[in-house]
């Protein structure tokens, strides 16, 4: 049988069709490996073993009977635990949802299920997807498979670590300020945040609704494209999902000639003094490789980049404070003994939320409160417009923007845990993309075998995922990936 290391979404399909292996064999092998390896990586919160094995056996019957297989038949995926799968827990990494069982499938799950995918389990995350290291989970700390003393990044750290350690073939994460791309970079896998509105958020436990997107985490850019194509599309249950965008087959079959018509912009503001030299050099190396592919590269400027973190830490907590008001101890959670309703709210929310959600809810309540609203929230909305305008301007002369994903490689567990502001700075290169609603992909820099992974980011025009995926596919082929 194929080694789990070599298994991709694409390879799985070929192997299944050529009867090299059965879906049951692969999924059984994955669970056996998870039993062993996840003791040290701690990527999963819940395993869906029985359902997954049963579904795999059905796929094998379909193969044996020569039936036409759906595009993701039997593909074993890991799902971040803030995405609802009917009948399974959905904790969002929080004690306040510890005993919650999802009553329905998120739209992305419904689509993946329809395409034949199999869900191995739910992966660990920072509580309510708030964090850059997965250390904020109420349940456990996920470790970076490349160095167990380091963080996997976050908040989709469980999904990224599961894929990087071959405990899943691919995964879904969610990204509000970098939560797919940063862990993908830290773990040496591919992660894409789609254009805002490309993928339905229905059934995603909301953090900041104007920024959240669900996206794929995979071993190759091609796999990320395959998954994205399946989960994208309009959904009447998400009023912000785009009604008339259809992604074509160029997502999966890019042409090098077309890619050579694109110009890549490299913004000077993303190579700041004091940033990790190894990261800067690795990302500049990626730029050179694109030049070797005969893709044009030019320098650009995004002058309002320096305000992105401030804008984000006003708008995001404001949306958090309203979204998380639904966790009131009434319909979910463990109900504290309370004198009256008000007392119940205080106690349940006080005991149920961990430090990071509390910090952000209080901050959000502040920036939205009378007397401070204009100075903080309204101001941030305006500066957000300037950040967006920077990108609009840049996209007049370039098609794609290349930047680092994070200022450093994976840091040590505990290193930033006591300093929220330092932790927030891990996301300075990914946040602007969410504020502007653009698609962004994190791709591992080639040739870092045996070293800590470093990622670079390609940012595309809205709805131009085909550009960043296409360039990414040709880049990874330079590194020997098929």
């Amino acid at each position, binding site marked *: 049988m194929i080694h789990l290391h070599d298994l991709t979404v694409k390879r799985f399909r070929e192997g299944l069709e050529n009867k090299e292996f059965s879906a049951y064999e692969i999924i059984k092998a994955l669970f056996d490996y998870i039993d062993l390896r996840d003791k040290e990586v701690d990527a999963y919160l819940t395993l869906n073993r029985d359902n997954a094995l049963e579904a795999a056996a059905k796929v094998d019957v379909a193969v044996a009977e020569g039936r036409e297989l759906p595009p993701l038949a039997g593909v074993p995926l890991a799902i971040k635990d803030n995405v609802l799968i009917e009948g399974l827990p959905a904790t969002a990494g929080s004690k306040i949802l510890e005993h919650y069982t999802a009553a329905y499938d998120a739209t992305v799950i419904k689509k993946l299920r329809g395409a034949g995918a199999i869900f191995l389990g739910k992966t660990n995350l920072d509580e309510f997807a708030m964090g850059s290291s997965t250390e904020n989970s109420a349940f456990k700390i996920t470790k970076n498979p490349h160095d167990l003393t380091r963080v996997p990044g976050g908040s989709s750290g469980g999904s990224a670590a599961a894929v990087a350690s071959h405990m899943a073939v691919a995964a879904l994460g969610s990204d509000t300020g970098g939560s797919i791309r940063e862990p993908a970079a830290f773990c040496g896998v591919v992660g894409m945040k789609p254009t805002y509105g490309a993928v339905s958020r229905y059934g995603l436990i909301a953090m900041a609704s104007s920024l959240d997107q669900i996206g794929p985490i995979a071993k190759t850019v091609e796999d990320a494209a395959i998954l994205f194509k399946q989960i994208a599309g309009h959904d009447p249950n998400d*009023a*912000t999902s785009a009604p008339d965008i259809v992604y074509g087959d160029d997502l999966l079959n890019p042409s090098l000639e077309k890619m050579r018509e694109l110009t890549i912009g490299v913004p000077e503001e993303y190579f700041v003094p004091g940033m990790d030299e190894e990261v800067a050099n690795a990302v500049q190396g990626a730029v050179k490789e694109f030049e070797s592919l005969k893709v044009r590269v030019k320098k650009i400027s995004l002058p309002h980049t320096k305000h992105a973190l401030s804008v984000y830490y006003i708008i995001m907590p404001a949306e958090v404070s309203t979204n998380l008001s639904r966790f009131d101890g009434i319909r979910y959670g463990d*109900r504290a003994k309370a004198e009256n309703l008000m007392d119940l709210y*205080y106690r349940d*929310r006080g005991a149920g939320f961990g430090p990071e959600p509390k910090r952000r*809810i209080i901050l959000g309540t502040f920036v939205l409160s009378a007397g401070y609203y204009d100075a903080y929230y309204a101001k941030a909305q305006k500066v957000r417009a300037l950040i967006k305008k920077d990108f609009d301007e840049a996209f007049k002369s370039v098609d794609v923007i290349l930047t680092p994903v994070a200022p450093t490689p994976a840091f040590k567990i505990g290193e930033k845990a006591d300093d*929220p502001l330092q932790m927030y700075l891990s996301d300075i290169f990914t946040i602007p993309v969410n504020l502007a609603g653009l698609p962004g992909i994190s791709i591992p820099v080639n040739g870092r075998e045996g070293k800590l992974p470093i990622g670079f980011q390609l940012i595309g025009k809205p709805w131009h995922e085909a550009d960043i995926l296409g360039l990414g596919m040709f880049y990874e082929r330079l590194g020997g990936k098929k």
Partner: protein
Amino acid sequence: MEFDVEYFARLARIKLTEAEKKKFERELKDILGYVKELKNTDTKDAVPVTGGTSLRSVFREDVLDKKRGDSGKGRGSFPEEKDGFLKVPKVFE
């Protein structure tokens, strides 16, 4: 700036311990100290971005999903219920 963490925690309906009050007050002051740099940005001509998309209001028919008409699964997570209804503490004294 002064930041009355207790007041905003109360507005947010979150009970804090004494240790949390101290810790959050310090951390939130740090964060607010950082974000105040926005004050000096020129936003005279900026049209505020109020959401993730430029979509206008979106309407759809409110269709009853017969399969979902049963509230049974949603009820599964109620911390307390009586005769199929969600139980809450007294609202009025």
